[in-house]
């Protein structure tokens, strides 16, 4: 048995070489699959529904893949549409699919698989003790759940069901990256260990190639091994580079948990076939009770930021005393101007770049004094107007802090912008990284089919 899988790029909209895609299409893949999402860029996509990548970038890749799919007449599977895999992300990519089909004269059967979860229902599951936290996830309250936008991460089963119903293009909401590549091989009876390992290897596209980049990988999945190859000679693969990809964004490099079990690559072997191709064997899949991961994000507040810099060493040396002084003044001013606002609902934070802003409390104690300090002040409040109004007095006061060495008024922060305040809109936080045990693998998801 040989099953061929094309992973054209690591993220729909990240790009790929057109020549690489054309070369891969010549190899006649049984399926083209591509991830479009991640939590790696933070909670904003899940909280707001705004994708990380532009429609223009997604359209460029998606059009090329729809044309390749049409040429080959094989399934095209896109997962975690719109970055977070929210229902509106699926609808957004479905809208692009219809536009591209109309413009290029394409026809296909389209499945939209929705992943949004009703927060009241998840709160009820929580009350019944049905939520299990994943590693290091903090305690979650019922209020957090009710405030959250929640998606469930699907495995292969909803995708397989859509394909069985005749779908040629599958737009999945939040999905396990690997499930996109594993769905078709599983249906064709491929070895589960090899299938999941191959899927894990290609889910980021050519991220494991040398040089890494936004491009594709191609898999030949056989009875007792798979080979993974680059789609362009400009990128190489080595047994080391392929093995090292099991490290990427993973807590454990050997054990990868999927909804239906665990991929175990401890006994995997990696052998060079050529400069651009590696043969992999030995991984095993151990089935376990079926669980589905939930991701949730909730609104933190609205933010206004102020960016500036400090160059005078007298001011830099005084910062450890000045910042607490400023905080005290801001609290008093807030109470004076906005007596109805709960001070606990407002956060005014100073980050002084050059003195340990990046590592925070874990910074080493004896950092050398910098010649220049970057200042980022972030105001977070329950409403944008309030955050902005607070930021205006914060910016004014922060640039006129009293320096003990100087008798007159000095401008203590250099602002590059006029006005110095920038509204950045809503900010979100992650709330859920938990699992539930669904009645069936497809039960949390809803599928709609249409002819495009």
């Amino acid at each position, binding site marked *: 048995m040989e099953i061929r899988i094309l992973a054209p790029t690591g993220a729909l909209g990240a790009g790929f070489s057109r020549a690489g895609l054309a070369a891969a299409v010549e190899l006649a893949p049984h399926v083209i699959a591509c991830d479009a999402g991640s*939590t*790696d*860029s*933070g*909670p*904003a996509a899940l909280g707001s529904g705004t994708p990380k990548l532009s429609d223009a970038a997604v359209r460029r890749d998606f059009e090329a893949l729809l044309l390749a799919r049409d040429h080959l007449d094989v399934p095209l599977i896109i997962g975690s549409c719109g970055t977070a895999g929210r229902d509106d992300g699926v609808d957004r990519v479905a809208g692009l699919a219809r536009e591209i089909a109309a413009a290029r004269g394409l026809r296909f059967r389209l499945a939209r698989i929705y992943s949004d979860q009703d927060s009241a229902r998840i709160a009820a599951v929580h009350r019944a003790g049905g939520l299990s936290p*994943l*590693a*290091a*996830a*903090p305690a979650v309250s019922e209020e957090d759940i009710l405030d959250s936008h929640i998606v469930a991460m699907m495995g292969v089963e909803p995708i397989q069901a859509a394909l069985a119903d005749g779908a040629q293009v599958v737009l999945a909401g939040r999905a396990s990256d690997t499930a996109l590549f594993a769905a078709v091989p599983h249906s064709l009876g491929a070895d589960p260990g090899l299938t999941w390992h191959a899927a894990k290897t290609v889910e980021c596209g050519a991220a494991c190639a040398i040089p890494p980049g936004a491009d594709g990988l191609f898999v030949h999945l056989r009875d007792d091994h798979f080979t993974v190859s680059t789609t362009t000679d400009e990128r190489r693969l080595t*047994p*080391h580079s392929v*093995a*090292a990809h*099991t*490290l*990427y*964004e*993973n*807590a*454990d*490099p*050997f054990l990868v948990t999927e909804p239906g079990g665990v991929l175990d690559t401890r006994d*995997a*072997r*990696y052998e060079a076939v050529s400069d651009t191709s590696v043969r992999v064997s030995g991984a095993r899949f151990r089935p376990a009770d079926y669980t589905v991961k939930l991701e949730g*994000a909730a609104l*933190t507040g609205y933010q206004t930021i102020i960016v500036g810099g400090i160059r005078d060493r007298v001011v830099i040396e005084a910062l450890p005393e000045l910042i607490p002084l400023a905080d005290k003044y801001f609290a008093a001013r807030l109470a004076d101007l906005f007596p109805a606002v709960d001070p606990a609902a407002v*956060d005014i*934070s100073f*980050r002084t770049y050059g003195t340990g*802003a*990046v*590592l*925070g*409390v*874990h*910074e*080493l104690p*004896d950092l050398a004094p910098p010649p220049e300090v970057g200042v980022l002040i*972030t105001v*977070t409040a329950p409403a944008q107007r309030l955050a902005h109004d607070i930021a205006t007095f914060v910016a004014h006061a922060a640039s006129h802090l009293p320096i003990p060495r100087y008798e007159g008024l000095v401008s203590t922060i250099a602002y590059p912008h006029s006005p110095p305040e920038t509204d950045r809109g809503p*900010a*979100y*936080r*992650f709330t859920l*990284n938990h699992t539930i045990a669904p009645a069936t693998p497809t039960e949390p998801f809803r599928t709609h089919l249409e002819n495009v």
Partner: protein
Amino acid sequence: MSSAQLLDLCSLVRSKNAGPFELTFDFVCHDEAGYRELRDSELLTPALFANLFALNENQVGFHAHDAALAIKVTIPRPVVQGSLDDADCYGGQQYALVLDALDRGRS
């Protein structure tokens, strides 16, 4: 061993989110000899990461990956990704603490 020696052995040193609540560090070596030297030096230990990030050693996941020529360390994220206190949304610069600590004898 200094950070310069570590960087000589490694082709890649990085930190990265492993989901919103965990942070993972990868130290990938150039070759088999460098990997064995790093692994056997016990330079990178659960105790080092526990010390630097104020954790218990049992919170530190530690893996030596022979095929990847890599040491991998995973800890609870020092600050939850995207929270108000988080200054590193991708967790991509947190490994700098490990490099600096080697030069200051914080192991």
